[in-house]
């Protein structure tokens, strides 16, 4: 269910495994949220067309955060053909066209304008009730996005507009704007309002985090830092406030917002012409919660296993940006990139393989590596494997030590699944980072049921194919390679 990037990627990948399926979507065209947002029409994830790898290679994906991924070289890097070169961040229409083009070229077929209305269990599967009738399936996958406006409960919040209701920027000329929230969507609006607004206040209880200081994608992205700079240098138009919002009230034609500062230093009251809740989004889960889907977090996304199955309702899966609620290990507090296309596109491919294997008995290929190939292969993957770089400490390249076949490549798997559900002697290789900003490779070696963590040193050029690492891997893997 869903025709945004999550649904399209999963459909493409299911087809490559030969799994028959239908894609349904309430929308009139594919593209999901990118048919509407971001409001100011340019993404915050980049694609750099001119790098050391050709656009048709798998390695190029590391530099292209926006294209869906394909096995065939001719379907790779689609967005590079569409971007006009004015920015390394695609515009919203370019992103939308990239998704449409991918679907057309790869033969992804979607039943559009088909609205999901209800869900029930039947026999060993599920029934989806839609405006086009009932669909029966063994495995439903919901790729319905995280684009339904979400507001926290506070007195008067219903008076505030939501990010989703934002008007054209010029209609805010000379206005005093109060934004509830200090995350990316609030900063995106604030950046867009800078040329128009008289006063901008951004308020929420905790301090603003910036991605460049958290050393991760947690926090406001570099593209939207300008209002922050305006505030810290006292530019005069922007105020960032650490305060809880006590109430939003009408004050004639305007609004009054009552706030309580988080440090206990007292209350502040603001008059504003517009109050906008940039408080995030949730997933339109309809009756899934009543059916037994547990939700988690402030915006109540479905809790999921490491393979994106509902944590409370087996047999029902999620795809796309909803994967952000399957957190993985979060080593050192670092989140996955599953909220973005660059992360969840890989999850989609892994989920397709899991569904094919678990529900349809289709085994993936597991090519055998010669012993001499193992170390160069792993160091090559750690240096250039796009899955490991986009999903640090979340996805890992897994090699299985099989007594009959030798060392077999099990592909890219969720690290949490490898650690908690895997069996047999094996190694998982991933790239990790810590809060200090170090990026380093890490191996998890499972032998006789015990897992050992082996951290390799960082490298300033992010190239781990060094003689020292070859020696370390040879030592660490010797028992596995000998078995």
């Amino acid at each position, binding site marked *: 269910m869903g025709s945004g990037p999550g649904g399209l990627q999963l459909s493409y990948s299911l087809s490559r495994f030969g799994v028959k399926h239908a894609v349904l979507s309430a929308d009139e065209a594919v593209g999901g949220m990118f048919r509407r947002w971001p409001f100011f029409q340019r993404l915050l994830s980049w694609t750099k067309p001119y790098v050391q790898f050709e656009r048709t290679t798998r390695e190029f994906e590391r530099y292209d955060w926006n294209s869906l991924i394909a096995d065939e070289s001719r379907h790779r890097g689609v967005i590079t053909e569409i971007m006009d070169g004015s920015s390394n961040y695609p515009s919203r229409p370019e992103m939308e066209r990239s998704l449409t083009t991918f679907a057309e070229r790869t033969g992804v077929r979607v039943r559009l304008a088909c609205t999901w209305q209800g869900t029930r269990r039947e026999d060993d599967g599920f029934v989806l009730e839609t405006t086009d009738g009932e669909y029966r399936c063994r495995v439903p996958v919901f790729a319905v996005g995280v684009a339904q406006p979400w507001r926290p409960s506070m007195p008067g919040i219903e008076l505030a507009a939501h990010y989703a209701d934002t008007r054209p920027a010029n209609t805010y000329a000379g206005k005093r704007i109060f934004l509830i929230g200090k995350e990316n969507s609030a900063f995106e609006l604030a950046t867009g309002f800078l040329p128009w607004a008289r006063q901008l206040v951004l308020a929420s209880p905790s301090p603003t985090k910036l991605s460049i200081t958290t050393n991760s994608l947690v926090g406001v992205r570099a593209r939207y830092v300008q209002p922050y700079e305006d505030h810290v240098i006292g530019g005069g138009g922007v105020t960032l406030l650490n305060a809880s919002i006590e109430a939003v009230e009408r004050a004639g034609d305007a609004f009054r917002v009552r706030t309580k500062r988080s440090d206990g230093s007292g209350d502040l009251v603001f008059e504003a012409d517009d109050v906008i809740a940039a408080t995030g989004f949730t997933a339109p889960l309809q009756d899934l919660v009543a059916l037994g889907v547990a939700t988690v977090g402030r915006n109540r996304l479905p809790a999921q*296993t490491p393979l994106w199955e509902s944590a409370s309702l087996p047999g029902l899966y999620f795809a796309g940006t909803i994967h952000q609620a399957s957190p993985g290990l979060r080593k050192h507090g670092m989140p996955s990139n599953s909220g973005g296309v660059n992360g969840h596109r890989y999850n989609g491919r892994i989920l397709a393989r899991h569904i094919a294997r678990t529900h349809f008995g289709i085994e993936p290929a597991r090519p055998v590596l010669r012993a001499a190939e193992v170390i160069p292969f792993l160091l090559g993957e750690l240096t250039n494997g796009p899955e490991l770089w986009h999903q640090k400490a979340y996805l890992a390249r897994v090699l299985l030590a099989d007594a009959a076949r030798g060392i077999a490549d099990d592909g890219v798997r969720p690290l949490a699944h490898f650690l908690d559900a895997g069996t047999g002697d094996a190694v998982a290789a991933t790239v990790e980072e810590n809060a200090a900003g170090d990026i380093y490779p890490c191996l998890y070696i499972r032998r006789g049921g015990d897992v050992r963590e082996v951290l390799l040193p960082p490298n300033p050029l992010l190239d781990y194919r060094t003689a020292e690492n070859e020696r370390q891997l040879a030592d660490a893997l010797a028992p596995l390679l000998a078995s």
Partner: protein
Amino acid sequence: MATQEEVVDTLASLAIFADLTRPELEHIAHELDEQYFPQDQRVLRQGLSGSAFHIVLEGEAAAVASGERVNTLARGDFFGEISVLLGEPPTADVVAIRPLRCLVLAGDRLEAFLVEHPRVAFRILQAEARKLRNATRRKTT
């Protein structure tokens, strides 16, 4: 959990946050992430670096060291702080034995969090003292 107010109410009902004002609790509600673990899922992994501080909101978990259950954890209990404070990997697994909801703070942020909220640090210290006393009693009886 549903609304921000409910999150804050839940925090207020936990012993380690008992001394905080409502604005402080709202701030903390933003600082901590909620996570849900189905039954049998591992929450903390013995021997792996980069772990986190967890506070149980609902459900039940077991601490398992080398295959042996050493402790059971329920609402209001917390775990993971020892490995974080010592900068060492956990010496036990923690596994959900019923569906489990936790508040989670990344290990790297615990020190700043405790410095910023000394009353929480005091409550944690009290709980650690209680654990030490109980362990001592067990040894001497």
